[in-house]
């Protein structure tokens, strides 16, 4: 049984279809990262999952149970909101304590004056306090527990929102870009915390992010949503190495995959020293797209099948250098990712020669479908041509 199932969820705002039938199964304890371009409906999907919005169609099952008509509070999901949605009148500590108090204390125990006199509430409250402090410590916000949201920085607020969601044990975790306002170190730290917590608690998680590093490093499977459809859902490795759709390939990978138009003749695609044979012989089209990731583009001083190009822009990223080169032949930009050592001496405007690794190239049909293809040695090709 799946921990969470979506079947054909659709949703429109006015006449604008935002979700066009999204189906998704999350196994118990699985961590799914949901990525997609801004405005593609990720937040909307999470809200529907939590029961905060109604879908126009489709069904949701949590733990095998149909969820329609069940109130958000009864779905036992925890959510981190993109806009934080902290209670402005409560301190950080009180904010984090809310979900615990709501579940652990009885209604009467929560009453302002009466409640504090009831038996058992004292120890329950102490336990809540302990949990809150522990959570706060692990997210490095224990010094902020007495501050109200209005007195915190953006990142601090976000961590409080995260703590509020993570402090309890829900049946599903929904997180909407929970780390987007954190600095890199804190993000890595928080990433570790979330993964750790997930491992310990085994709560299935749907995690929306626009940070690929997060998606690829944290998730068991990554779902790519584009234009209201879930295009691919598979392991991080597969989604990176083996995208089934051009849009997915384009979306995943940083810097972006290089995409150039190519011609398919007789089941053979060739471009700048790369020769690929299409496995599916029945493919009839002629114009295809060739994709190759920047790390498989390298500078070569003197290979004759190298592509002539000029460096447009150099981006230094610390441990690596990104070259944006304009191909002399077709005017397209080709990106190469190099180590600082490899890029040593390269400067903007300089002519360079680029080589591509044929075994890493991918071929896509005009409609974006991935076409299976195998690299063909140039010699073999020659043989073929001459043979």
């Amino acid at each position: 049984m799946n921990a969470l199932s979506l079947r054909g969820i659709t949703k429109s705002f006015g006449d604008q279809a935002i979700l066009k039938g999204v189906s998704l199964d999350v196994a118990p304890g699985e961590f799914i990262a949901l990525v997609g371009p801004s405005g593609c409906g990720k937040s909307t999907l999470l809200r529907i999952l939590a029961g905060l919005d109604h879908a126009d169609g489709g069904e949701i099952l949590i733990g095998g149970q149909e969820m329609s008509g069940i109130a958000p509070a009864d779905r036992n999901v925890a959510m981190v909101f993109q806009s934080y949605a902290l209670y402005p009148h409560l301190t950080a500590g009180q904010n984090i304590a809310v979900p615990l108090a709501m579940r652990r204390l009885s209604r009467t125990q929560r009453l302002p004056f009466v409640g504090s006199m009831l038996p058992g509430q004292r120890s329950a409250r102490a336990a809540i306090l302990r949990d809150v402090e522990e959570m706060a410590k692990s997210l490095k916000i224990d010094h902020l527990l007495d501050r109200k949201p209005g007195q915190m920085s953006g990142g601090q607020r976000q961590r409080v929102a995260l703590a509020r969601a993570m402090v309890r044990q829900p049946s599903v975790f929904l997180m909407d870009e929970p780390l987007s306002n954190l600095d890199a170190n804190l993000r890595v730290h928080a990433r570790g915390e979330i993964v750790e917590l997930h491992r310990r608690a085994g709560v299935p998680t749907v995690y929306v992010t626009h940070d690929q590093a997060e998606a690829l490093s944290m998730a068991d499977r990554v779902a790519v949503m584009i234009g209201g459809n879930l295009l691919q859902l598979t392991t991080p490795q597969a989604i990176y190495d083996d995208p089934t759709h051009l849009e997915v390939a384009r979306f995943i990978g940083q810097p972006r995959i290089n995409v150039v138009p190519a011609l398919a003749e007789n089941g053979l695609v060739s471009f700048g020293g790369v020769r690929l044979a299409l496995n599916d012989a029945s493919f009839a089209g002629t114009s295809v797209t060739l994709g190759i990731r920047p790390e498989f583009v390298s500078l070569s001083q003197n290979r004759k099948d190298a592509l002539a190009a000029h460096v447009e822009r150099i981006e230094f990223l610390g441990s690596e250098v990104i070259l944006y080169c304009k191909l002399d032949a077709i005017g397209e930009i080709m990106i190469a990712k190099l180590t600082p050592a490899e890029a040593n001496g390269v400067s903007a405007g300089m002519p360079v020669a680029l080589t591509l690794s044929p075994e890493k190239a991918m071929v896509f049909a005009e409609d974006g479908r991935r076409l299976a293809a195998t690299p063909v040695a140039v010699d073999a090709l020659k043989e073929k041509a001459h043979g």
Partner: protein
Amino acid sequence: MASLASMSIPLTTERARERSEARTAWLLASPAILLIVLFVLAPIAAVIFLGFTDFQLGIGKFRFVGFENYAHLFNDRTFRKSLWNTSVYTAIVAPLSIVLGLGVALLIESETLARSFFRTAFFLPVASLIVAMATVWQYLFHPTIGPINALLALVDIPGPNWLGASGTVLYSLSIIGVWQSVGFNMVLFLAGLTAIPRELYAAAEVDGARSSFDRFRLVTWPMLGPTTLFVTTISVINAVKVFDTVKTLTDGGPNHASEVLLFTIYQEGFVYMRVGYASAMTVVFLAILVVLMFLQYRLLDRQVHYT
């Protein structure tokens, strides 16, 4: 030394900047200030002045009597009675109309059906001319042929003599007072409710605020804090200023049982024509209110604004 100087220069210009901000503020507030001085402060000054005289309407001359009016006031049985009645009336009407106003606003917000009908229904009493409505209430409260007592008779409850008996008249007026002000408070609460970010309710639901009462405690009530403070202030002030219903329905009677402050002041000033004495009464009335309000504000203002 030099560093001290360089530190102090920007600070003074910074102060100049603050001054310019203050100047803008003054400019924006000046029409209001001018008009307040003209239409609030100046008349109050005149009232305070009159309070020290024996001025009577229609008699041109008056003389200063010092604190005589005030001395008289402390022995005035009617004044004390009306002070007490006003307190009782306020103690009933203000809390009831706030609670009901909030309740109605919440119910209407949570209900999708016939919203504008309900809003209008509860608002109508605010929009009605009390002099005309008093006539209707007078009839509704009629001890023998009135519909209320007729209904009570159906279930064998002897109806009280609502407006006629000194024991019940204040409560009857309070009922009308509540009827009149619930809609007023409802509108304010509705406006306050629309300003609460929807996301907070979403968060509350996800956090396990299952019942609407929980969500109310967690989000609505604290977020309505400023509105509630405002409504409370206005409700108390309006209750203390009750006049029209008393004037048109009971004339303070029977035997001062429904005598309230503003009515007493009116009676002294305009019916007995003793404007000087009425002015002294007004001053005391205002003094009491001012003290009350500032106490309330001191205590509550801090607690309801979060940013």
